[in-house]
């Protein structure tokens, strides 16, 4: 069997980044495009195995945060750590190694429209990690089974519905077993039933595969569903249940407003805060 994780970490780092360790850290990050400030002094920490849900109006800088984590954009000031590596001033060639451990689900999926579903999902395994053909094909079948689209393996992206495309994008992001998954508006534009399926995939990946995740959305229903539910492996099936105790604390919300953090806390705290803060109240109601 080929390597499971693209980049094995040194033992000390492995220990530091075990469950609850700081897998993504933003330290006083600033970013502006020309005169417009997109992020002002943003700091947060994503712990291993946890979820951060970013809420905020369009243009509040939510998607920008994901692009900074991937190194697709560079901050003007501040430091960003991913997987124990400082990436804010890293060269493009070195960033490729950091990206090996990141999976990103883009808005609208961003599937390669000249490739089949199989080639899209297995892109990284076939092209970048050079997995043996049989192992790569098995993994592609496995992840497509996980998201329930095994029958669509030879279709082209243009033959899929919006929801299916989004789920294939999730499969592509998870195929190489990254430790971190980033979701950019994964349910925007989908009907409530399909949205729920996508939410459940995100929960399953987090709770059953131990993936740390950042979800950017302005769909509140989905945000709360992801934060307040957990996936449990039963004898014959995987069950999605309401999270309780410690598990319920592992998902945190960050609300961005005018480039800064307007709120940070768990689902219960967000509901309490809604009563007092008119902006959050307006946003949530």
């Amino acid at each position, binding site marked *: 069997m080929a390597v499971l994780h693209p980049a094995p970490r040194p033992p000390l780092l492995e220990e530091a980044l075990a469950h609850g360790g700081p897998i993504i850290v933003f330290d006083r990050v600033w970013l502006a495009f020309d005169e417009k400030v997109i992020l002002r002094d943003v700091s947060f920490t994503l712990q291993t195995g946890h979820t951060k849900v970013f809420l905020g109006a369009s243009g509040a800088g939510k998607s920008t945060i994901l*692009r900074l984590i*991937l190194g*697709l954009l560079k901050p003007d000031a501040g430091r960003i750590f991913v997987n124990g590596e400082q990436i804010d001033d890293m060269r*493009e*060639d070195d960033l*490729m190694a950091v*990206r*090996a451990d*990141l*999976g*990103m689900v*883009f*808005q*609208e999926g*961003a*599937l*390669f*429209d000249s490739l089949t579903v199989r080639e899209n999902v297995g*892109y*990284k395994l076939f*092209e*970048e990690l050079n997995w043996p053909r049989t192992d790569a094909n098995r993994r592609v079948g496995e992840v497509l089974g996980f998201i329930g689209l095994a029958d669509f393996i030879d279709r082209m992206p243009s033959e899929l519905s919006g929801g299916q495309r989004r789920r294939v994008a999730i499969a*592509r992001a998870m195929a190489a077993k990254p430790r971190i998954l980033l979701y950019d508006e994964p349910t925007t534009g989908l009907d409530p039933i399909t949205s729920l399926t996508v939410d459940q995939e995100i929960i399953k990946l987090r709770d059953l595969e131990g993936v740390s995740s950042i979800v950017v959305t302005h769909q509140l229903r989905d945000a709360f569903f992801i934060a307040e539910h957990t996936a449990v492996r039963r004898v014959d099936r995987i069950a999605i249940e309401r999270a309780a105790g410690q598990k319920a604390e592992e998902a945190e919300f960050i609300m961005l407003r005018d480039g800064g953090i307007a709120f940070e806390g768990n689902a219960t705290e967000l509901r309490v805060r809604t009563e007092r803060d008119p902006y959050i109240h307006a946003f949530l109601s």
Partner: protein
Amino acid sequence: MPGRFAEWLKAALLEVQEYVRMIGKVGRSLVSRPFYYRDVIEQFDAIGVGSLTVVLLTGLFTGMVLALQSGFTLDQFGARSMVGRLVSASIVKELGPVLTGLMVAGRVGSGIAAELGSMVVTDQIAALRALGTDPIRKLVLPRVLAGFVMVPVLTVIASAVGMVGGWIVTVSLLRVASSIYWNSVVEGLYIQDVWMGLIKPFVLGFTIVSIGCHVGLRTHGGTQGVGRATTNAVVASSVAVIAVDYLVTQLLIVLMY
């Protein structure tokens, strides 16, 4: 008004800077790994084999019309038998490389800009980078290599077919014997002309494809932006073909003649 000119100048300089940076990256990715062989072969097929029909037709008709026009002009001096000289010299030195370049600019330059442009606006380029692939290595280098190698091959074919086109008209309409035409073709060509006809298309192929890639990758503004990028790519690479043709001709004349 000076403010607007300054803005325009700044934008133009930025464009040149980004183009040169892209060329630098292409050079670096040529000498380091990974190298995507499959994409290179695909592009050789798409750019080379795909452009064959249009280049064949262009070459054929150019040769034919050239023979027709020069035949009647030469008649005034009683020199109809010299028609082969005119056809071969002008096709091999100028028309073959330039017309092939223009055809490839129209067909390939626009295609590349549209393809890369739509990949940019649908986030597929960002997705590539997120999956650990450098778009320059995966998309630009194979296309530039294919342009650099295949445009000269296409040019040789276009020139050859052009001379055959000239032969058809000369023999059938101008009533000049086949052997006289071909003798005249060979007499009209000097080795420097052949070199010029062979060197120019390498530069043209590189220019057309690299401009297409640059314009495509700098696309912004949704589907409208893709349309704009496609038009810009064709206009810029067509003008570049003519301008680069002049500059390289000037340089080669200094060096070879």
